[in-house]
């Protein structure tokens, strides 16, 4: 039988009024595509504005102030500006690969967004292999950066993309292993099941449920995902002082904007993943006192989800603007000589915990 694409109530309603399964499937798919586009493209300008403001206030500046109330229209003006810029490839560039690269790097975050359960029944595809799928899709994004750097025919681009490739494949391992830790403790790789295993009070979230280990896993996830996102302090791929723009030095206009968009959608995706795996997904932070809990349960799940995602995003942004960037060899050493052994140890300790306590 047909698995629900958008489950109840909307998907069921469409399935009821349209008897032909193929057509109702197509309508459901269309609705989910529009929804994901709205989430992804709608949040990006908000995040860019947020980042500029957070960065400015950390550095004791005001940030954008002129356009609209406190500069709220600034991002829209920037998008307009980018639309009217000329798009061209530099001399000697591989034109086909040059334009293919932004397409590839935008594919990965959209695919990953389909896995995320935003609420009890808001999930585009409920796969049983959710976590491996996300790990696989994440590798796709690296390809876009590598191709973009190579096709540009620019030394800075090539250096930036190769460095970025080395960094991302290294941190991908600990990213995958921490997610495997969550798979182990929750007993399922399905993201909906992982969320449902955290129902109950705030102490049932995976960050708190396993004493100490859960919190360590969360910190490890945070570090490796920061590196995966290519954000400072792990932004050697586009370190302005060394490599000008990194892999997107030669991109301009909308082609450049697509890389930027991919970066911010990736931020949303990774924060959603952290929320789903560690912070209880769409469950409210119940504390066990009945009168407060009933009040918290009145708020719909997706609002809790969005709140937690924005909390994670602001954490990423504050980290970005507070820490200094390590050298490239320090970065690789940190992953291979500290994070990876610690990760294997964490898996072993988690296995022991489950074997003894259950």
């Amino acid at each position, binding site marked *: 039988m047909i698995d629900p694409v958008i489950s109840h109530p909307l998907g069921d309603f469409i399935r009821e009024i349209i008897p032909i399964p193929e057509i109702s499937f197509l309508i459901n798919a269309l609705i989910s595509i529009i929804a994901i586009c709205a989430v992804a493209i709608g949040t990006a300008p908000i995040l860019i504005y947020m980042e500029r403001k957070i960065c400015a206030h950390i550095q004791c500046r005001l940030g954008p102030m002129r356009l609209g109330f406190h500069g709220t229209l600034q991002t829209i003006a920037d998008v307009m500006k980018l639309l009217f810029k000329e798009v061209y490839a530099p001399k000697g560039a591989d034109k086909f690969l040059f334009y293919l690269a932004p397409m590839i790097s935008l594919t990965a975050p959209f695919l990953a967004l389909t896995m995320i359960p935003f609420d009890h029944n808001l999930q585009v595809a409920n796969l049983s292999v959710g976590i491996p799928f996300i790990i696989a899709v994440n590798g796709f994004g690296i390809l876009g950066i590598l191709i973009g750097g190579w096709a540009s025919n620019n030394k800075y681009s090539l250096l930036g993309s190769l460095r970025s490739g080395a960094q991302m494949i290294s941190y991908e391992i600990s990213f995958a292993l921490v997610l495997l830790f969550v798979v182990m403790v929750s007993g399922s790789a399905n993201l909906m099941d992982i969320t449902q295993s955290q129902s109950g009070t705030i102490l049932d979230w995976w960050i708190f449920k396993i004493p100490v280990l859960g919190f360590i896993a969360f910190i490890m996830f945070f570090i490796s995902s920061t590196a995966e996102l290519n954000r400072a302090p792990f932004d050697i791929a586009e370190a302005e002082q060394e490599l000008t723009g990194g892999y997107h030095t030669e991109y301009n206009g909308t082609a450049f904007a697509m890389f930027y968009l991919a970066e911010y959608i990736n931020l949303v995706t990774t924060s959603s993943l952290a929320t789903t795996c560690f912070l209880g997904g769409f469950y409210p932070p119940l504390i066990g006192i009945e009168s407060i809990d009933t009040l918290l349960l009145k708020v719909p799940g997706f609002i809790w989800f969005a709140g937690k995602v924005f909390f994670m995003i602001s954490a990423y942004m504050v980290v970005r603007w507070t820490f200094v960037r390590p050298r490239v060899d320090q970065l690789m050493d940190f992953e291979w000589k500290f994070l990876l052994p610690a990760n294997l140890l964490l*898996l072993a300790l988690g296995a022991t915990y489950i074997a003894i306590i259950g």
Partner: protein
Amino acid sequence: MEISEYYVLGFFLFLGAFIAAAAIIIGKLLGFASKDSKNKYAPYECGMETYGNARIQFKVGYYLFALLFLIFDIEALFLFPILAQFKTIMAGETLLVPIIVFIDLVIFVAILFFGLAYAWKKGILKWE
């Protein structure tokens, strides 16, 4: 034909690429072309004349890291099915099966751990 959720992922596989392609085409159409000059299409190199080929040879270190990554990523994939079932196995009624599975897991992780230690001792992890 059975319709499953993987078909929806097929749509999404092309969604991102489609959006990017549309944006680039819009940019091509809307963008004002600046005046052509000798160096307009030259790759950026701090303002100097471009020197030599940009596709230079790279050191082998990147390749070794990529190989190591391959090993550990496949390892993660191998670990995944056993870890997904780990809780159920541990809650099983017999005592022997959980112990065997647990020891297997520990041996598997230990081999990888020693593999990493070997690579470390051989100096592959040194970035110069």
